[in-house]
């Protein structure tokens, strides 16, 4: 049971970061990036290549990985979303555009690195930490610490900086934000950079725990999005809490029912929430009523 809890919380933290990586672009452009999962996959794959065959130290590799995912993310905005929007395409067209761009990322990764599964070597050899009665694998410590760092950093940026204020203002009323002189297009580009960076970090953190293939992206996106739905769009702590609940529930289902049932729990939980409480645990009711 203790082990399940530890692995559940660990995986849940990753879900939470993926969920939060949707947030910046969503708040500035009301686009849910269906390519976000592919960005996480890109991060995990590039990281696996850099740390494995190329032999870069794990913590050094985070730099180039994040640069790659940020670049891919901002290109998605500049070449796809902005182009569709400029020609009068609807929000749905833009979202479909991110889906198509995600397919192209998957194809590019397959051609570059092959389709075989890759696992990122963990930064520390196994010296599990001992916390009272709990034995905690080192990568769990890295993941939880990384998640806390990311959360604190994002919270600081959102609440304490002018940049955070402009994002929140744009999320609230895009047109008014434009009126008061916010360059919404540049801001949106920057939020895609932030979302890309978070995706890259999520890929680096999760890479040592999974065998990533070019096809892992949709799964990553789904986990993140389920955490986002259960936690509530527009909330900070909701997705984190939801991610952890989801991770633990999945770990228990896999242990008790068999490895094929992890997904089923995710799906049932998500449908239950959509049905009973579409605003999620902590979401503002507003978000659902107006559609997204």
């Amino acid at each position, binding site marked *: 049971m203790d082990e399940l809890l530890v692995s559940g919380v660990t995986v849940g933290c990753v879900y939470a970061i993926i969920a939060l990586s949707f947030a910046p672009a969503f708040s500035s452009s009301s686009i849910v990036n269906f390519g976000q999962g592919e960005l996480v996959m890109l991060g995990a794959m590039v990281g696996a290549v850099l740390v494995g065959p190329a032999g870069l130290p794990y913590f050094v590799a985070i730099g180039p990985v994040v640069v790659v995912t940020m670049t891919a993310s901002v290109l998605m905005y500049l070449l796809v979303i902005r182009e569709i929007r400029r020609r009068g395409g609807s929000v*749905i067209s833009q979202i479909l*555009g991110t889906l198509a761009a995600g397919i*192209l990322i998957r194809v590019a990764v397959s051609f570059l690195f092959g389709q075989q599964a890759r696992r990122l070597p963990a930064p520390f050899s196994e010296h599990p930490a001992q916390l009272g009665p709990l034995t905690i694998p080192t990568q769990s410590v890295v993941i939880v610490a990384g998640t806390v760092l990311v959360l604190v950093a994002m919270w600081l940026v959102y609440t304490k900086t002018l940049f955070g204020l402009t994002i929140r203002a744009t999320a609230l009323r895009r047109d008014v934000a434009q009126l008061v002189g916010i360059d919404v297009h540049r801001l949106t580009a920057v939020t895609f950079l932030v979302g890309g960076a978070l995706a890259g970090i999520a890929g680096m953190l999760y890479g040592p725990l999974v065998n990533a293939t070019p096809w892992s992206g949709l799964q990553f996106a789904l986990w993140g999005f389920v955490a986002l739905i259960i936690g509530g769009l527009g909330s900070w702590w909701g997705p984190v809490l939801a991610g952890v609940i989801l991770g633990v529930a999945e770990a228990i289902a896999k242990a008790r029912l068999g490895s094929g049932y992890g997904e089923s729990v995710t799906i049932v939980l998500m449908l239950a929430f959509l049905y009973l409480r579409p605003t999620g645990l902590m979401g503002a009711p507003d978000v659902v009523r107006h559609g997204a």
Partner: protein
Amino acid sequence: MMRQLPTAAREWTVVGVTVALLALVPLAVATFWIQLLALTGILAIVTMGFNLTFGVAGQINLAIGGFFAVGAYASALLTTKASWPIGYAALAGLGIAGTLAYLVAWPTSRLRGLYVAMATLALQLGITAFLVHTEPITNGPVGVFGVKRPVVGGFRFATEQSYYYLILVVATAVFLVMRALLRSRTGRAYEAIREDEDAARSLGIRTALYKVSAFVVGALCASLAGSLYAHFNRFVSPESFDVVRSIQILTMAVVGGLGSNVGAVVGAAVVVLLPEYLIGLLPEGAPNVGLYQSLIFGALMLLVLIFAPGGIAGLGRRLWRRLGQLRRGRPPSAPGSPAGSPDLSDAARRSG
């Protein structure tokens, strides 16, 4: 100037001539292309249903490949393992697909846009997982072999040609039913919901009921096509119905032009035949052929979304209008004039 037939008569003529031409095709091409055209017909049925759900009523269903699987597996399993007659097996598939769609659509009918997208994506992954993991029922990753070609009134659709004609007949029937549905009061209600759900509701349209029905009709089309597919391919396995299939159907609808019934058929043809043609240009034994297919889906969808938001149907309408203006000797109108084409460019902005 040529004497003009009334619009309705002209449309029936176009439909009739097209079907007649499609009926002549098997006489002229190799079996390989007949098989591809048969597959096109099957996927066109799915896409017409998907177009009704998404293009017309604005409810995305990313589990469409899963509903396709329901029909295919119902037909394959019931005819091989339980020796049911083919018709009953297909009906059972329709029953299961309809019930499943209904069960999923009620909770999601309260939701909009991307929530529906994610809920149905989850369902798709769930159906794939079910097909792979419940081996006692579905044979797991191995799939179901030995599905037989149907026999109707003593005639067995054994050859590819004969089965092609069966598909042509069913696809034409679905096309005509969809066409009638889109022009009915129900079709207009769907469009109203897509354009502005709140306004539609305020006009007294029971939005939840219509959203559910659009979803169910799309699922039924997919299941029917799935049954046709199982007997055509004589083998089903989970790979044929994974999330890539859903994305393929979505690509077909987008490329053809969301909201257009004709577009759904044209889109299916382009998305099946174009990759096949392009992959044929690759050198013999080239690796990663499947990847090129994904590449073409992605690139095609992006190009259409950016440069031709109305899809092929939208381009066709523009061309038609230009031709009409030229024939009447009027200069073509300035670009950017109100086009009035029912593509989604303005439609789903609010419901996004």
